[in-house]
């Protein structure tokens, strides 16, 4: 039996939750606006980056040079009032160049080893053209991304939260590169494709960058607030039908499961079985649900919808779905495969 105090307490909790969601929306909107003061367009990229940041993940940006990737990260650092570092990955880049190394330091007449932190020790790290470094160096960064810490010698050095890596890669200059293996791709929360800006956006870019006025970005969110927002994201409930949809969506990316799954998934089995070599890992489902939750909060809702899941699916799954030779040969994009899956997958089971 519900008592009066319990009712009032529940009502208070509900009001607090609504207030926290409202604040979440407002903060996120303020952050977007601040970034928009310098970065023109690329709303989807900004949304994806912010989603990954709030989910505690990392982003792989794919796009040709000159599209504002570095500017985005730099602006994000300024707007979030977080430390920022940039590493240009080259074939001769060594792991120590990324994570740091022990160096002999003379102090008080004696020499000792002292760990010199690398550029990875920042809140925001831009790993530019990550596919140009050797796998060894890539692994060093990816280990830091996964473990949120760096181990040198016998010592582990935790990375400062929030730790957020944006790695970029150029899709057209593949000669002399070391493509990221699938296992390391899976560690990126999102893979975002940076497209060439539209004509209006290009005009705005030119107006802003060729004039004398340089827009200033003020910090919109602090480190603590970001961590609070991350915590709120984890509290967002998800309805079982919506979560089931996310699960079925991930299942449908697997050729073996798509062929033998429910009638809805079976309709896209032809494309999946024809072009897909391996489907998404469970990390993909995690990314889907977290991104959907952030999408719901960003929309002022308290629970994600099917549409939130669908919207999160391409950036969360496109680098986790591996095409087979036939798919690669025919130039099939994973986005097309995912679109086909979502078109055929019913919301209701």
């Amino acid at each position, binding site marked *: 039996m519900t008592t009066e105090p319990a009712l009032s307490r529940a009502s208070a909790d509900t009001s607090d939750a609504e207030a926290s969601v409202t604040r979440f929306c407002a903060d996120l909107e303020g952050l977007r606006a601040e970034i928009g003061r310098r970065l023109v367009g690329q709303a989807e990229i900004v949304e994806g980056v912010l989603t990954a940041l709030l989910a505690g993940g990392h982003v792989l940006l794919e796009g040709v040079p000159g599209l504002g990737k570095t500017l985005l990260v730099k602006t994000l650092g300024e707007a979030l009032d977080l430390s920022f570092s940039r590493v240009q990955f080259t074939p001769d880049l060594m792991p120590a160049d990324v994570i740091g190394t022990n160096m002999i330091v003379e102090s008080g007449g004696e020499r000792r080893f002292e760990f010199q932190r690398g550029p990875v020790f920042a809140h925001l790290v831009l790993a530019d053209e990550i596919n140009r470094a050797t796998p060894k160096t890539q692994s060093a960064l990816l280990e830091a991304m996964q473990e949120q810490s760096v181990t040198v010698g016998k010592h582990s050095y935790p990375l400062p939260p929030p730790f957020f890596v944006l790695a970029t890669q150029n899709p057209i200059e593949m000669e002399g590169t070391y493509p990221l293996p699938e296992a390391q791709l899976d560690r990126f929360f999102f893979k975002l494709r940076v497209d060439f800006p539209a004509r209006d956006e290009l005009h705005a870019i030119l107006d802003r960058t060729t004039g004398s006025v340089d827009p200033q970005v003020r910090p919109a969110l602090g480190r603590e607030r970001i961590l609070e927002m991350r915590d709120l994201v984890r509290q967002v*409930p998800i*309805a079982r039908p919506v979560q089931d949809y996310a699960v079925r969506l991930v299942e449908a990316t697997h050729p073996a499961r798509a062929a033998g799954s429910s009638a809805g998934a079976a309709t896209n089995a032809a494309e999946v079985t024809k072009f897909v070599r391996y489907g998404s890992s469970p990390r993909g489902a995690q990314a889907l649900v977290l991104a959907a939750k952030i999408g719901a909060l960003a929309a002022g809702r308290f629970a994600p919808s099917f549409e939130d899941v669908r919207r999160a699916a391409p950036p969360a799954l496109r680098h986790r779905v591996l095409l087979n030779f036939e798919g690669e040969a025919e130039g099939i994009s994973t986005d097309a495969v995912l679109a086909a899956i979502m078109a055929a997958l019913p919301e209701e089971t």
Partner: protein
Amino acid sequence: VVESAELLPLLRGIRRRVRVLAAADGAARGGAGALLVLTTILAIARARGLFVNAIEATGLVAAGVAGGALWLAARRVPLARCARIADRAMSRGMSGGMSGGASSGGDRVLSALSFVQWSLETGSAPTPLVRAAVADATRRMRALTPAAAAPARRPRGLLALGAAAAAALVVAALPGHSRAARTPVAAAVAPAGEARLRVPLAALEAEREAARAAAEEAAGLGDERLARLARELANAVDALAHEGVARGDALDRLRALEARAAEAAAEAESERAGLKAAGRALADSAATRTPGAALAAEDGAAAARAFEALAARGGQAGAGERDRMARALAAAAAAATAAGPAQPETAAPLGASSLGDGANAGAQQDGGRGQRHLARDGAGQKPSGDGHGARAPSDRKLERLSRDLDQAAIDCRASPELCRRALENRARDLPQMENEALSSEARRRLANAVQQLLERMKRGDLDERGLRRMLSERRFQRAARGQQPGGEESGGSSRGGPGGGDELTLGEDGDADGAGASGATLPMVGGDDDGEGASGAQAAAEGADREGAGMPGAGQGGDQGKGDGIGTGRGGDPLGPRAAATAHAQAHDSEQQLRNGAGPTRPQVIETAATRGFSQRSYEYVFADYQRVVEDALTQGDVPDGRRYIVRRYFQLIRPRTTPAPTQRKP
């Protein structure tokens, strides 16, 4: 969850609305189905001239509507479906209002319902965000009425309902007549307009031949009754062939004729049996052996002479001799009586004679079998005489014969003069009775022909539908007569083969203009040796006075010593090359006995008839033998009427045909 106290009733309101809409859908679909059924019923009723009650039709449609509505309204509607409906309605109301979930309303209600159900199932306390989600959904649901969530729409199935209604109206508007309205029209028109049955003459050939044969036999035997029956059959056939007769009239006429013919046949058969029995009884006595033997041998003239001699002897005989005569006559009277009353109720068809005299005699000696000979089939089982209780005419004649013989016996015992007179009277009567008895087979054949014609008419073989069959029968009949399928008589000019041993040609007597003496090739037997067989032309050249040149199945083997006689090879077209006939030569097929005296065997005759037609003389004998056996079997055995008809019809078709009169060319 406290907030769910309001959410669930709101969802239930939507569920009620959904049920109402589903009921409308069901009503439309059920109505459409019922209208389709009604359309079918109407169509059937129109076709059969039946009437469909409007109230029942309306009731059927109403039942369909109600049943469909109830069926769909009673189906389970999950609350989750109602929540989705509400979410869709919200998305419609605020499309573009929010950045997220613009297309689906954010699935707020569905999520809230899911949280509530999960909390109720697990009993766990909801988190603040869950409470907020439920409260948010409830708040939005308050602004959403069930009618707005599930707005009224055109029921699904309405199009089908309209189409079915249109179909029903069209069928209902079709002109139709009730059975009561149609029947009198048919009944009134039918008698006046009853089609007259007109049968091609070719289809009645068998009956015409039967009538002609009966007339000839009647003339030969002096049987006026048989002649009258034959004329009636011929008239009936002519009427059918030339004038056309109403089917009912034809059936009545033929039934009456059949009854009279059967009665006449039965009477003659009875007389025949009685006379033979009396003859055998007389033959048992030395005093009357001669007339008895003549009677038993069915020789009327000899019997008359024998009785005249007996009368002369009786006029001079002493008492002892006359007493012996009287006993013999009394025994004959008793035998004649026994032959009559012991018969079955109806007389048998007489075709029921056995194969050959010997067999016939044997059958007569067996009383039971003899009675079976006189048994009639079902067609003649009606009392044929003067009504119920009246004796059949055949019985009366036998009684009269018996009475006359008894009277003769009495007279012989009384005085020589009376004995002489009585025996002279018998000498006058008996030949006439004998002739009448001898016509029993002819009468029976005539009765069978009438019966067959009647059966054919009953079966519709002579109607329109039997035309096709008649055409094929006609073709068969042409072939049976040895004619070419084209309808022309096969001329003697058909060219024979080159004289190969595998073919035997029938030589024909052709006229001087014949294009060749060789006849149609007979595809059967010749010498096994190639080139040994002689062509019909050669045969014709060897002896122009022969009736025919070729011999079926024989070749020249027996004559020239070449070949093995009957071979086994087969030739070409059974009726010869169709294009080979010319009109310059006329000939007829005939057979020739082999010079060594051995005639063709029965199978050879049949095979020849099968290939050349049924015009050979030898075939007539073979046919007659077989027909007797078959008639015997049909009479004695328990053969169904249908089978009996088929067998008789078959024998009608394969009956011997009258050979066209040849133009004999004598050397």
